[in-house]
């Protein structure tokens, strides 16, 4: 079963534990500026939104790379930077529609989320389950369940059986 990172901004408190965990995992140091996942604060709206690579099936970064330095990890579905091959041309950072591939000037290579080989540190560190790692084919399951509970039948079931 392939899994995906599922992000629920409604649960995020903006604590950046995910950024700390990511940078520790990937850089061996606590450094949010080098994190592959970033939390954005929308002050006026009162919202916090973690954001990272969605691992596109048809990954534009991978297609754009002129030196084949981005490879598919077949086990996780992640698109992974091959540091030995990356020449730091940054074409991938331009081709990514979401901005989730970024250049690291310290190393001259690009960095992006690789799902930590199937055990993402950000999801483990998140204290509110705003970031979870779930069945890639069922990312809408929890949301569907919430809405199902709001139907007449769901509400009745909740009254009668206490809900589940």
């Amino acid at each position, binding site marked *: 079963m392939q899994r995906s990172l599922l992000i629920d901004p409604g649960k995020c*408190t*903006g*604590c*950046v*534990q995910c950024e*700390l*965990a990511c*940078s*520790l995992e990937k*850089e*061996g*140091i*606590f*450094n*949010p*500026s*080098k994190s592959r996942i970033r939390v954005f604060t929308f*002050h*006026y*709206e*009162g*919202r*916090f939104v973690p954001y990272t690579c969605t691992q596109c099936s048809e990954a534009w970064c991978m297609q754009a790379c002129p030196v084949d330095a981005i490879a598919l990890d077949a086990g996780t579905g992640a698109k992974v930077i091959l540091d030995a091959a990356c020449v730091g041309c940054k074409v991938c950072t331009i081709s990514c529609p979401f901005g989730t591939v970024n250049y690291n000037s310290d190393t001259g290579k690009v960095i992006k989320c690789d799902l930590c080989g199937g055990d993402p540190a950000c999801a483990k*560190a998140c*204290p*509110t389950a705003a970031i979870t790692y779930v069945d890639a084919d069922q990312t809408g399951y929890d949301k569907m369940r919430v809405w199902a509970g709001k139907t007449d039948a769901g509400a009745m079931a909740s009254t009668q059986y206490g809900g589940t």
Partner: protein
Amino acid sequence: MAWTGKILRIDLTNIACSTEELNRQWAQEYLGQRGLATKYLVEEIDAKVDALSPENKMIMTTAPLTGTMASTGGRYSVVTKSPLTHCIACSNSGGFIGAELKNAGWDMIIFEGRAPTPVYLYIVNDQVELLSADEIWGTSVWSTDAWLHNKHQDPLLRIAAVGRSAEAGCLYAGIVNDLHRAAGRSGVGTVMAAKNLKAVAVRGTLGVGNIHDPARFMQAVTAGKKVLAEGAVTGEGLPTYGTQVLMNVINEVGALPTRNMSEVQFEGVSKVSGEAMHEPRKSDGKPNLTTNAGCFACTIACGRISTIDQGHFSVENKPEYWGNSGGLEYEAAWALGPDIGVDDLDALTYANYLCNEDGYDPISFGSTLAAAMELYQLGAITKKQTGGVELTFGSAEALVWAAEITATGEGFGKDLGLGSKRLCEKYGHPELSMTVKGQEFPAYDPRGIQGMGLAYATSNRGACHLRGYTVSSEVLGIPEQTDPLATENKAALVKAFQDATAVVDSAGLCIFTTFAWSLEDIARQIDAACEGDWSAERLTEVGERIWNMERDFNLRAGMTAADDTLPKRFLKDAAKTGPATGRVCDLDQMLPEYYQLRGWDADGVPTDATRQRLGLA
């Protein structure tokens, strides 16, 4: 390790920046932040110095765990001599700038002198510049924040600034970072403004490494996070209601100071409680509270993000206040609510916004306003001073008016900026000032929670809940329940809380972790992060050393045992309602024992033996 080992020294008078190595010996004795920066301050300034003169110094400081993944490990402190109390000032703040400073590679910044014209400090890692603040002098913290982000075209810049209140000389101005977190107490912002320093803007990308034993550190961090998640207060109460979880609780124990602390329970409490912040408004169906928020690395996330009802009189036709911002926390809600008899949640939230926008301490402001209202009731202050405004208890209009003029220091706002002690002296009724050593009380009445009376009287920064929060034991039963109305054993309780708090404040952590963490939980994280063996016992000794160092500074500054007292209202006027009915605060039953346990003589002076034991001789 865990310290960066680097200090930035800023000579404002000569617009010069230099770096120096951290004194590692002191770091082993005083840990970081509150303890370590206070050590630097007491070594470098004369305790008798005028707090607002160039001879005073101001230190912004991080700690070993600041910037790490340790839950709540993002704190920083501002240490200086206070213009409000003439004692040591150490104000602690969360948000993100502390971690940013550490990420830029600095353990602390020492500011000395006074800039010839307004400046701000701009830091990008080891690139440090003092730049002109002419364009932002005279503007609010929020305007300054926007201007700096725009000027440097850097959305990731973290900013701490003073507002117009500090520039106008309000004696309880704070330093606001990340728009709504603050090193709020004791007038640290007043000192910063007196140095002609408008803001500190930091961007750090170096990261925080140097962890002594990374694997053991992460084990301790993960275990610590679990303890917080499972704690009733840290895992449930604080995320849901914030510190406002206390409003109804403290009212029920009869310790919610009301109308300048003349009563101990407030009839309008349910309208300004944490629960009330969840209630949908009639106007737009939205609750006051939008969401909870965490500071850097904090897995508790007690912060409140709120909105004001757009139709409320305070913000009508002021769309700039219609968005979300930092909402009410307990101490602020109390000072802006029960202590002035106001139960209008939107008015409280608006006043709280202004405290953040122009950087003044809501506790001291609310308490000062409460004193002004009592003076008005007596006729000592009249409409002549207020320009026609009726300064009556319970008036939301008076609160809004007072908050606006204190923000800018105009008119009667100048008087309110004096703080309660000086205001009451000016209008001939010093007995109406609810202060210790010149600093206003927070939200726990010492008649209903006896240990807090001793904690207030002996606090090194004047009346304060964050120097020994025995409410935790006396009301919440953490780590174990003690009787809030008893005085027995409170001296030992207060001492233990004071010493432990000094440790937490010197570690880079938030004191709220101690609703679930023991000192052992903290020691495990420090021991893994730092070189040297850090046991709970050693940390307790560090805490005691810090406490005595602060005490020594205050004594040298001119404070005496006579200052270790409470306003007569708490010592003579008995509580009229609630569980504490008939009780005053029996300070005299606790204070001598406290001196003895501290190893101080009858005059409250640490004995030679105590100094030697703690390495302070």
